[in-house]
């Protein structure tokens, strides 16, 4: 079962992949797999941000 991933952890993982990519540390075979992982992390982070933003706006509206 997949554990609920934390935003900060996902972001750190993503940053690591990007840094390694830019340093050319992955070989070509790995590249596609890593890119897929990076895109999954990007989507996860974006979703997390959007969801939180929506929640915040809702809380704000309730107050007004």
């Amino acid at each position, binding site marked *: 079962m997949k554990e609920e991933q934390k935003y900060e952890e996902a972001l750190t993982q993503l940053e690591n992949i990007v840094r390694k990519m830019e340093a050319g540390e992955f070989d070509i075979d790995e590249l596609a797999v890593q890119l897929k992982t990076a895109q999954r992390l*990007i989507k996860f982070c974006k979703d997390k941000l959007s969801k939180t*933003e929506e929640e915040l706006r809702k809380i*704000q509206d309730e107050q007004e």
Partner: protein
Amino acid sequence: MREDRYTLRQLNLLVRDAVEMQLPDEYWVEAELSECRERSGHCYMELIEKDATTNTPVARASAKCWRQTWQMVLPYFKRTTGQPLRAGLKVLLRVYAQFHEAYGFSWIVTDIDPTYTLGDMARKRQEIIRQLKEAGVFDLQRELSIPLFAKRIAIISAAGAAGYGDFCRQLEDNDYGFRFTITLFPAIMQGEQVEPSVIHALNQIYERIHDFDVVCILRGGGATADLSGFDTLALAENVAQFPLPIITGIGHERDESILDMVANTRVKTPTAAAALLIDNLHHVLNRIEQAEDTLAHYINERLRSQQQRISQLATLIPTLALHTISEGHHRIEMLASRPPIAIERQLTEQKHRLERISLQLQSFDPQLLLSRGYSITLKDGCAVRDPKQLKPGDELETRVEKGTFRTIVK
């Protein structure tokens, strides 16, 4: 004789001559003032002498004190007696007689001896006051204060006296609906019995002292002489040393007695005493209401400022949070834009590498040698490297740039 007539003026002038001739001197005269009025700086008095036993007038005369004299004697009189000249006072005047044909007879006042007016009674009062002060009790009552919630009132008064009735009505009908508890301790309020009677009432109150907040000694107005009963040393000592504040309302303005002097508070009338007690409670009520208002105001202010602060924070927090979110978005976008670039670069590098290798490989292509004019000779598909390999009659294939041809070895 019938012809020997006078006009009134002529006759009055005769009287004037006679008066001036017969009464040329100045005299000291004792009299009571029955009237005393100041007009245009002059003082016009009516002098009277009463029979000591019947109290009926036995002599009466007008007196005048001209401005110049009056301006000198009045301040001296006031300073000495502590009061101005007024009806009812006994005075010792230095006078001369004047009969004016138009205005009639008057004594013209040239001096007043105020010490006479102080009189026996006043001197006695002064003596009592002196004794009270010497004993250190004269000011004791004024060191007490009427309690904030003075509602339980002990009254010393003649039962059924008009002043007491006025007092009760005034207290009961107050505008604010204050409820007072009034307890009457009846006493004789005039004549010889005042002293023992009032002291007895004070003793009765003292026995239940915790039931009361304040004591009122009340009496309707009356003649000055009636107040003499209140000017005794024993009564003054009792009042002065009483542990509850005492309010006196025993006479009118001009009737100040020693009792008034030693009491905590003196007012002119019983009704004024009631008004004072009502005012006291009203003042306390005002203070309470003001405190209430201040408190409510303060609480409202605090609540309002806290609400303001909270709503400021409330608008600030989501804004800050959203700011963090948008920063997050930005960061993700930045990160997301980087892999394609990195991948592109890596792929390009790999392509270049492959190209370099392919170039290196090209340099080994035999076609390149042929294009330069070299040729390769093959025998049975293998390159001929040594002529010793060949025998005449062998068929050879030769490759040149633009094709192949066959030859036979000779």
